[in-house]
């Protein structure tokens, strides 16, 4: 059992709180760096995919987990990032500028869309964000000159300083680097005044306002930065897909993203990562399970989305703090052994306040 004596205010602020953090995260980072040398191409590709999910998950975690704005339309930001990136690359714009512009456009759309949505709460906000995603999907399907319409558009390989990133491990490192950058910004945001304002809005709008927090401005900030991160994820997703069609960014993707943050653990940065791993692995597990199930169930259409829904509901009911909450309890059990009490987490509740219809 580790007991940490706090001797300075800095200890609360630091990202790596003690040497144990440095050790374990160091090992994790090292493992990720050597993974391409050890694992086969298929696994590297799948891991890159999980990184992309994690970036999008961090993006969605900010409004849903921290600010308490339940978005059902985040596939739209993925789509905007993906199409913008593909479009700029076609125009011959260098990759880093192209992906940054894609994020920036997504950022602006996030800010603009929140202006009409800022007074809505709970279920109304969720429905409005869903409507927004449907509108974006329609625009993409009809704006042929830019998006190729329903016929879709191809995505060029990223070129960095004249160097074409055409192999899987190139892409792996690209995704990892962007994930680390986004993770760093997300962690900073959470410990900064803006992050505190987000949490304040989530837990009590009336009292956040009485503490001087401008609700509209912070909701807009929260959605805009979320748009930026999710847009970056979309831009990378475009390379993974290599050919874009509007139906790659439908309602199901929004649900998948939402499931990621709910299952991972709302209101924690860890949760987004845990959720990404879960959502990234789930289709593989389902694919393997299909072989063992009787065909009547295994070949049932809509099996995957159905399972997603069931898993999300089960988590909301039985483990509102998600996989990360599970992990914290697991760690605490060993830290406290044999003193752990089952009642330690009795009073936990979920953050998703869709029931707060006002």
């Amino acid at each position, binding site marked *: 059992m580790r007991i940490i004596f706090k001797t300075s*205010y*800095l200890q*609360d*602020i630091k990202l790596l709180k003690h040497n144990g953090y440095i050790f374990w995260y160091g090992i994790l980072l090292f493992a990720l760096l050597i993974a391409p040398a050890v694992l086969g191409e298929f696994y590297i590709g799948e891991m890159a995919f999980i990184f992309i999910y994690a970036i999008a998950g961090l993006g969605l975690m900010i409004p849903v987990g921290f600010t308490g704005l339940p978005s059902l339309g985040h596939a739209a930001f993925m789509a905007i990032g993906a199409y913008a990136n593909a479009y700029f690359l076609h125009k011959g714009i260098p990759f880093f500028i192209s992906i940054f512009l894609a994020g920036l456009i997504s950022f602006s759309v996030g800010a603009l869309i929140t202006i009409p949505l800022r007074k809505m709460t709970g279920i109304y906000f969720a429905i409005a964000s869903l409507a927004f995603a449907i509108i974006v999907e329609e625009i993409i399907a009809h704006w042929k000159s830019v998006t190729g319409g329903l016929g879709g558009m191809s995505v060029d390989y990223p070129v960095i300083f004249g160097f074409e990133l055409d192999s899987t491990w190139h892409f792996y490192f690209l995704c990892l680097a962007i994930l680390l950058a986004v993770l760093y*910004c997300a962690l*900073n*945001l959470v*410990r*900064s*005044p*803006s*992050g*505190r*304002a987000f*949490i*304040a809005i*989530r*837990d*009590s709008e*009336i*009292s*956040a*306002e*009485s*503490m*001087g*927090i*401008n*609700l509209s401005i912070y909701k807009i*900030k929260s959605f805009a*930065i979320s748009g930026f991160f999710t847009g970056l994820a979309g831009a990378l997703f475009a390379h993974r897909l290599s050919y874009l069609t509007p139906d790659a960014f439908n309602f199901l993707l929004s649900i998948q993203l939402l499931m990621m943050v709910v299952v991972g653990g709302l*209101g924690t940065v860890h949760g987004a990562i845990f959720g990404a791993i879960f959502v990234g692995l789930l289709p593989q597990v389902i694919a393997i399970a299909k072989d063992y199930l009787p065909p009547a169930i295994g070949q049932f259409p809509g099996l995957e989305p159905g399972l997603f829904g069931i898993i999300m509901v089960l988590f909301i009911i039985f483990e509102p703090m998600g996989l990360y909450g599970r992990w914290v309890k697991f760690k605490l059990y060993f830290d406290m052994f044999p003193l752990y009490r089952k009642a330690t987490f009795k*009073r*936990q*509740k979920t*953050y998703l306040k869709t029931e707060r219809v006002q």
Partner: protein
Amino acid sequence: MTFFKAENISIDFGGIRAVNEVSFDVEKGTVFTIVGPNGAGKTTIFNIISRIYNLSEGRITFEDKDITHVPAHQVVNLGIARTFQNIELFEHATVLHNLLIGRHIHCRSTFFSDLFFLPSLKRMELEHRRKVEDVIDFLDLQHYRNQLIQNLPYGVRKIVELGRALCTEPKLLLLDEPASGLNVDETEDMSFWIDDIKKLLGISVIMVEHNMKLVSQVSDHVLAINYGRVLADGKPREVQENPDVIKAYLGEDKDV
């Protein structure tokens, strides 16, 4: 100059006039208490001052500035902080976190510096923590610093809410029933703190309270209202002995 002045404030909810032409002045450095039976309109007056509700008629001035129309999130910038009757804390955050949110108006960082946690922000954050630590010491909250609000007993939450309001460094503090739900000892503590807030920190207080012992201990001036109208206005003793006030609390005796 008058410190705080409410002139003929009224508010209608549909057909009901919850506050009806109420006027009062608060002097700097005093504790001003509003009393009245349930539903008299006390909380509504607070909600009018903190701009949660729009006035139907009347005017409010603070330090000679008309504040009748400032946006709700600007009120605390003027130096008016408040607590809520039903405790509105940030449940899923720690005590420290809640108090730091109380420092929000003093946080001068940009969104960009938040994202990269620039050194200037780090310096400011350390400064805010020092200020918060002062409040923690003042209210004896050391023991609860890193606990989540949802795990705290009711009495402690009340004190945390008071602390959060103090963290904004207000000139005027609005306390909505600070002693409701507290036991005898906690109420005693609260009365000392309110006195210290006035005398040591130099903060003026407008308070709503039902506990008459506490009211007479700490108040300099009392305003009694019923059905949204002023019944009496004066020193605590005068108001307590006012026949209209006694009638309002005990109910009218039809036989007399």
